């Protein structure tokens, strides 16, 4: 069953300052959702709220499955990849070990995913010594290894060059084709156009626009979105 989420008046305040919301919106059951917006618009917070790791000050976020299932069928890739101080192999295996997967399964999955993210030759290297792009790919592989139904990515390609970006996008497209719902933020409008099936445009913590990708890029509804797409500075 496809997982969908509903935000009802979701509001996040920190030290009296509103970071996000109130946001009321529905997440479509499938596709790649790109969250756009200037810095500080609340993109990361929105992702974390949906992922359930950010506490809401007010309002609710509801998935159409039980909390337990929602937790175990989601994965999150952080903006700066968090590497366990272990080898690449052990980093990949870690999420499977947590759910007590069988040894044979772990071995099979790790080599499969190492292949997919192009790190098959680096399995025994310490993960903390990988390059930025390799770290990000490893984080992505580690997130996908449990076959999540929903994958959150927070600017997965920030600071990466074209080749690493393309490799990551290929893995994402592949994951999408095999039924993973993807929700990601990016500052790269080209990437947004390449991947988006729908767009959430955030501004000052509010959902400013939520449109299918083609519609948003060709015909944004608000002047702020138009300015943002043209590359103007929107605050």
């Amino acid at each position, binding site marked *: 069953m496809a997982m969908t989420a509903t935000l009802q008046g979701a509001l996040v305040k920190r030290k009296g300052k509103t970071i996000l919301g109130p946001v009321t919106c529905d997440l479509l059951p499938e596709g790649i959702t790109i969250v756009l917006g200037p810095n500080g618009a609340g993109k990361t917070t929105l992702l974390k709220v949906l992922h359930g790791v950010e506490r809401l000050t007010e309002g609710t976020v509801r998935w159409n499955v039980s909390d337990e299932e929602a937790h*175990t069928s989601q*994965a*999150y890739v952080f903006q700066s990849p968090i590497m366990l*101080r*272990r080898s690449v192999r052990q980093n990949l295996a870690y*999420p499977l070990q*947590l759910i007590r997967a069988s040894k044979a399964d772990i071995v099979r999955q790790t080599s499969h995913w190492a292949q997919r993210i192009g790190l098959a030759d680096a399995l025994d290297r*310490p993960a903390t010594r990988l390059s930025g792009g390799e770290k990000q790919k490893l984080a992505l592989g580690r997130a996908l290894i449990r076959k999540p139904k929903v994958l959150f990515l927070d600017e997965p390609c920030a600071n990466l060059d074209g080749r690493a970006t393309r490799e990551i996008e290929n893995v994402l497209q592949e994951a999408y084709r095999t039924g993973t719902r993807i929700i990601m933020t990016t500052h790269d409008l080209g990437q947004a156009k390449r991947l988006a099936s729908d767009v959430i445009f955030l501004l000052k913590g509010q959902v400013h626009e939520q449109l299918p990708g083609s519609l948003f890029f060709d015909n944004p509804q608000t002047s702020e979105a138009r300015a943002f797409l043209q590359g103007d500075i929107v605050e």
Partner: protein
Amino acid sequence: MNDIWAGLEAAFWLIVTLDADLLEITLRSLYVSLTALVIASAIALPFGSWLAIRRFRYRRATIAVLNALMGLPPVVVGLVVFLLLSRSGPFGVLGLLFTPTAMIIAQVIIITPLIASITHQAMRELWAEYHDLLISLNTSNWQRVTTLIVDGRRALLTASLAGFGRAIGEVGAIMIVGGNIEHATRVLTTAIALETGKGDFALALGLGFVLIALALMVNFAIHALSRTEREGRW
């Protein structure tokens, strides 16, 4: 200077001739302090890690108390353990006073706060690094603690070695609860105190050098076994 040379000479002969008494008290020193280290580590490493990841009401107070306990005077610990274990004390029936077990108990009390505190400091940094990932992966508290312990093992080794250093060199508490009884509870440090009191500085110094060598050897051995200081490992 003469005393020091004489001490080195005494140490040399004690070791070369494998003096039976020296061997006995050295092994007892090792036995008492290593046992205390194992017990204290078993308590302090998980506790220190747990303190780093859990947020609870009296957390700050607990950490402050723990840090204060690091400076616990061994003599006072010895006195309290003595009173608890003495014939008229609550645990007198166990007959533990003036046994190596009593010395182990005292040393566990002395080094547990030290190990737990250093563990907590190190684990706090590692937890800050891992926090988001481990939360996102929906880990249980136990999984978090074990992950931190496994990945922070180098820092934990340092914590344990600091605890061992304090235990092996400690004299105040074990003198009181052990009683420095020959062939029963005499260890290197209490023997040194005794020989110094008797004015046999050469033998005292000799024992002192043996003690230092022992501490160095244990450190090297643990580092070699756990392969910590090698390139590319943590």
